[in-house]
């Protein structure tokens, strides 16, 4: 139902575009496009998120359980991990590449951080750094293959993803690592400050940094330029392969951090956690986020809103009694719709639609 609402607000914007292009001033086409429409587009996603919150709070079937601080805290901390993966996916997306391995990367690095503590008694800070370093190394492998060899990033990272999943199963023997995990990490995963889960603060902090990097540094502008037109980027002096490589390394590092969060959230490292489904949810959030705030561009705020739009919708539906498969269906459908919407918006922005 909320999915239908998404289409409902997205489509009028898409279909009225040709009328706007009929204006006499051809140069002014999109610039002169009504700012009202543009703003409706920008704030559609936050508006729908609020509608979802209101709906499940008021609906008799879900209201009692949905509109509680416990539920909000739970959804909040549950989706920090997906949020982190979305931030990881964002950097390659901005420069026009896919990283399909972020979920499996996190699945791998959760084993790294847990094993480091449980088997080798590495202190927590070093274990975390180790996980991030492993994640970054995986990103380096991806980035090198994509940027220097020139292989399609989707294929490379799909391959990486498969290898990582296999390695995890082999190393763990399909057994979880439950003991020997730092209690500090566990309490970080479960405690609240001022009623807000600690993990949410971490996500907020990292999101701010990624936002700053993409939006307010030349590096972010360079990544965006590469994503817009790599050949033109090269001709204004940008080192396109280095930029792409760096985006994959950063994505890997953030996925490594997401692996740590996975352990913090679950209290253990389980081989099943951290997989391609998580990647899909993260990508869905990025694409959905690209339809709002700065329509047509991948942006941090949009992606974060999309993560929690998915999170709260799935939670509300679960409370209403829908089976757990809804989570996958919902994020799959969200990805589908988001990609369609951003294609329509992108095409209109390019003056084709």
């Amino acid at each position: 139902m909320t999915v239908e609402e998404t289409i409902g607000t997205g489509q009028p914007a898409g279909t009225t575009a040709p009328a706007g292009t009929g204006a006499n001033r051809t140069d002014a086409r999109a610039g002169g496009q009504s700012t009202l429409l543009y703003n409706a587009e920008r704030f559609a996603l936050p508006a729908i998120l609020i509608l979802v919150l209101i709906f499940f709070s008021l609906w008799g079937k879900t209201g009692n359980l949905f509109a509680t601080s416990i539920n909000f805290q739970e959804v909040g901390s549950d989706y920090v991990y997906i949020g982190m993966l979305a931030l990881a996916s964002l950097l390659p997306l901005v420069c026009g590449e896919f990283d399909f391995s972020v979920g499996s990367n996190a699945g791998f690095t959760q084993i790294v951080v847990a094993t480091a503590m449980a088997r080798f008694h590495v202190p927590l800070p070093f274990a975390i750094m180790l996980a991030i370093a492993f994640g970054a190394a995986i990103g380096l492998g991806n980035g090198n293959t994509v940027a220097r060899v020139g292989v399609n990033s989707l294929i490379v990272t799909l391959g990486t993803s498969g290898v990582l999943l296999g390695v995890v199963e082999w190393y763990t023997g399909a057994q979880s690592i439950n003991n020997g995990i730092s209690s500090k990490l566990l309490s970080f995963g479960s405690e609240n400050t001022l009623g807000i889960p600690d993990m949410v603060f971490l996500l907020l902090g990292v999101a701010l940094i990624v936002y700053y990097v993409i939006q307010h540094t030349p590096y972010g502008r360079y990544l965006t330029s590469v994503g817009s037109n790599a050949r033109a980027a090269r001709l204004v002096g940008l080192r396109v392969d280095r930029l792409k490589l760096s985006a994959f390394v950063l994505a890997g590092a953030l996925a490594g951090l997401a692996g740590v969060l996975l352990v913090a959230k679950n209290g253990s490292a389980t081989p099943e956690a951290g997989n391609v489904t998580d990647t899909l949810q993260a990508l869905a959030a990025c694409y959905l986020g690209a339809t709002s705030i700065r329509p047509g561009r991948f942006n941090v705020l949009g992606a974060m809103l999309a993560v929690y739009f998915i999170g709260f919708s799935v939670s509300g539906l679960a409370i209403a009694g829908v089976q757990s498969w809804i989570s996958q269906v919902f994020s799959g459908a969200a990805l589908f719709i988001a990609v369609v919407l951003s294609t329509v918006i992108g095409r209109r922005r390019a003056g084709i639609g």
Partner: protein
Amino acid sequence: MEDPGVGASDAHPHAGDSASSVAPGASAPAFALRVAHVSKNFPGTRALDDVSVEVIGGTIHCLLGANGSGKSSLIKILAGVYQADPGGTVTVGSHTLDADRTSPAWARSVGLHFVHQDLAIFTSLSVAENLAIGRGFPTNPLTKAVRWRALGRHARTVLERFHVDVDPKRLVGDLRPAGRTMVAIARALQDQSDASEGVLILDEPTVALPAVEVDVLFDALKRYAKAGQTIVYVTHRLEEVTRIADRVTVLRDGQVAATLESVEATKERLVELIVGRALDHEAATSSTLGGEDLVLEVSELSGGPLRGVSFGLRRGEVLGIAGLVGSGRTSILTTLFGLQPPAFGTVKLNGEIVSFSSIDAAMDAGFGFVPEDRSESAFVTMSLKENLSAAEVSKYWRGMRMRERAEATDARQSIVDFSIKAVSERQPFATLSGGNQQKAIVARWLRRQPKILLLDEPTQGVDVEARAEIYRLVREAVASGTSVLVVTADLEELARVSDRVVVLTQGRISGEVRGPEIDPSRLTELVLSAAPDSRGPQLEASRP
């Protein structure tokens, strides 16, 4: 068999001597193709003006002319892509049609076969598959599966007929360039039952071919013609005309300047016809530049198509580079900009030898480059502001953040300075017109006040008004000390904007024109007549 010929197998047991009806020079020549009184007007231009051409069967007939002379319009009318204005007629064999009613289906039905410059072949498919595409694969009537053996048989027959010595199973991408062209020709002609039946029209097939490959192709074409095939060969290369043509028609400004027999078609005569006046036999002047105002000195630059290019560029000078496609004109710019390292030669900037390992090094040294294709310079999904500042983003990075307000102010200033028509600096770049996009891209570099601006076809796909404005902007920059190297195929434009023009022929400078001597027809003459394989004395003179 030892007298190879097209379609020689059934109709002409002795292809060489039996083609009496199509032999050139016979008393009453049979015209395989006749174009009579064809005109074509486009809004604002007269592309063809009462053009009549008669092509004798079994001959190679060249169609020659400079850019904009009307060659391609004529071919497109024959192909049915355009229709001519009412009044003219086209006759192929015994079929006559009003020239305003041509269509692709008609062209196919009367046997006009076209092979265009880009060949339209599929490099990742085999020769046999390429031959079948467009014609249809032989299939099993029941399962609709391709009958590969039948396909191979057909391919072998066709290849044998056209003397293309390749295995039908090979990928076309693995063939030599001439082989690909011949496969394309074989594909076009495969359903002709008789060589004297249709007309093969080749549109500049040798543009992308190296010299050796051209020889292979020409041998094949001569063989086909001998077997009775009528060939219309469109080109702007004079030496090709003297090598293969039986007759040649020269077009100039949409009119037929003359139709000559091959014996009359000397190079000088052809150039005169193309340019429209008698040749002045003075060699193009050239001398080494001297003086302290020399900003750039290029000597013996080689690599890629370049084979020892030397020239100098003064401060505040616009130097044009004229040359045919494949002459290396773009490579000069890309090599200077650090896109590919030169194999040999030196570049001196303000008297000091420089070599750039990367583009940003060239940019730091004061170079700017506007590439030929806007898809290599425009960030269409980004804003006008971001496009304007793309070559100097770091300038706005102060105090740990991007100074977007300063960037916006500069962008608004540029919009005014460079007369870009836009609603605001935040406007998506894709929504600007082509001319305004190009102005913004030129502005992107001029904002950096480059020492040397490299322009490759800066006004391609741009309307007349924007074209004038772009050159006005370039002129303003030149007045403040920027030096410009400009490449364009439009010689009229080149003549108008350049202080001096060097002519590039097959990777070498073959001539130079300056000041009052620069005019479009003089440039056309130099570009077309430069000897391709001899080292011109001009080049020797310009060597240090």
